[in-house]
């Protein structure tokens, strides 16, 4: 594994794993406490439509995915503020429409299926320098926004109605949250693939929730856990010659199962 670090692609993979964990831990925490993991899933799958369009029109797939992710996030939030349409129905529709349109675009464009597989299941060993820049910039933006608006994010997540009565611009905060979620989803697609994005956003945060009593502690622990899962998954995948995204998810799921058992025993003793 240490020898592997001599390769540029492995250095990229390690850096992307670490940068990805920061976004993953912070946004994953917000997604988890707001019970919005299906929203993250639907954004991820909707962005597949953007990938398809990018292959068809010949522009950067990252731009296509980001665009579709952002549009779907805004679309869902617009629908959910109108109570008449059920949010989960809108999310399910977005989820399926993204996949369907992506599939059609890709079929027409005649793209080689290996490219497709890398988006669906991640391509950690093929992370480019521009992907790393994307991750670094996103991390900086997330850290600035969350530290600056921490009390607002905490308040809106805990009790939206009360926050609104206190004069907090709840729609604005929700909007920022959804956009950051969309951008994080696209970044994580590079690591674990769009199918497994939900797991990466929710598992580290769910484990962190069991052991922490405040939102910022949960964010830090979730980021550390995500980094550990990413790096151990990457190493193991390298040694066993397996796809890293999948190994990362298996390790995360294993850790989640283990902490559920630990939690069960702890609460049984207490």
């Amino acid at each position, binding site marked *: 594994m240490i020898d592997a670090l001599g390769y540029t692609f492995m250095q990229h993979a390690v850096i992307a794993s670490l940068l990805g964990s920061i976004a993953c831990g912070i946004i994953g925490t917000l997604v988890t406490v707001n019970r919005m993991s299906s929203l993250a899933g639907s954004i991820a799958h909707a962005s597949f439509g953007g990938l398809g369009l990018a292959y068809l029109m010949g522009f950067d797939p990252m731009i296509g995915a980001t665009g579709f992710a952002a549009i779907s996030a805004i679309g869902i939030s617009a629908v959910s503020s109108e109570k008449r349409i059920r949010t989960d129905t809108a999310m399910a529709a977005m989820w399926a429409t993204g996949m369907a349109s992506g599939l059609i675009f890709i079929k027409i464009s005649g793209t080689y299926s290996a490219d497709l597989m890398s988006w669906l299941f991640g391509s950690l060993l093929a992370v480019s320098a521009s992907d790393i820049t994307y991750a670094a910039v996103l991390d900086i933006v997330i850290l600035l926004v969350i530290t600056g608006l921490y009390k607002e994010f905490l308040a809106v*997540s805990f009790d939206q109605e009360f*926050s609104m*009565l*206190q*004069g*907090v611009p709840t729609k604005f905060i929700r909007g920022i949250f959804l956009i950051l979620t969309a951008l994080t989803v696209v970044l994580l697609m590079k690591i674990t693939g769009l199918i497994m994005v939900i797991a990466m956003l929710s598992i580290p945060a769910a484990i962190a929730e069991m052991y922490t009593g*405040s939102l910022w502690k949960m964010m830090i622990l979730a980021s550390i856990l995500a980094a550990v899962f990413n790096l151990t998954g990457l190493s193991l995948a390298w040694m066993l010659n397996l796809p890293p995204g999948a190994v990362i998810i298996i390790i995360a799921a294993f850790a989640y199962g283990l902490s559920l058992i630990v939690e069960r025993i702890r609460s049984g003793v207490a």
Partner: protein
Amino acid sequence: MNEVIGLKGVTAGYRRDNPVIHDIDLTVPKDDFLAVIGPNGGGKTTLLKVILGLLVPWEGSVAVLGRPPEISRSEIGYVPQVIPDESFPITVMDVVLMGRLKNTGLIGRFTCKDRKTAEMNLERLDVRDLAGDEINSLSSGQKQRVLIARALAGNPQILLLDEPVASVDHNTQESFFNLLAELNSTITIVLVTHDVGAVSSHVKSIACINRNLISHDEELLSESVAKAYGCPFELISHGGIPHRVLEKDKKTVP
């Protein structure tokens, strides 16, 4: 100004042609302690939303402290219903600090004064020692006190409570109402509840809501009426729904 909350001919709801509350008139004078009683689905929460300016009525006018509710709702301390078994990683102190959000700008940090005010209100509600605890580790009754402390942290003129008795067990109900009575010396209190038996003698006026609203004035609650029935409560029936209005007289009840 004597009128704190004034509703005139208010009709509101969520779906057209199906108003949840219909043609409601309500006047709450300063320093009142009003209990609004009604069955589930009777429009209690809708009434609160209208007063808070979260729901714009289809017809009629709403005034809080003589101004539209959207403007004067910063003077209302809102205490929502306690949701049991809710998991959210937040400390008691951070919950109470939410009541100070309107005093700090966006991006700005909570100041020393904000923390002092939060602590003072936790003290007032007798839950100061829980400040560092996680909200989920508290009992429903303690959570309720924290939510009241949060509402009071903004120094409101009106306290609005949604189903406050639901999370207080019968043994502590008396002390809970004593606490509200104490707060009532400086703050106008309005609470809504479906639990008819839970309305205490500390309450100064009672209104019943079930789509329409009927205020029971002083006379009806007077000692003489209670005595006429030979017991400290009476049955009132209007709109086909009979209910009790309690008049606990400390002299007659052992």
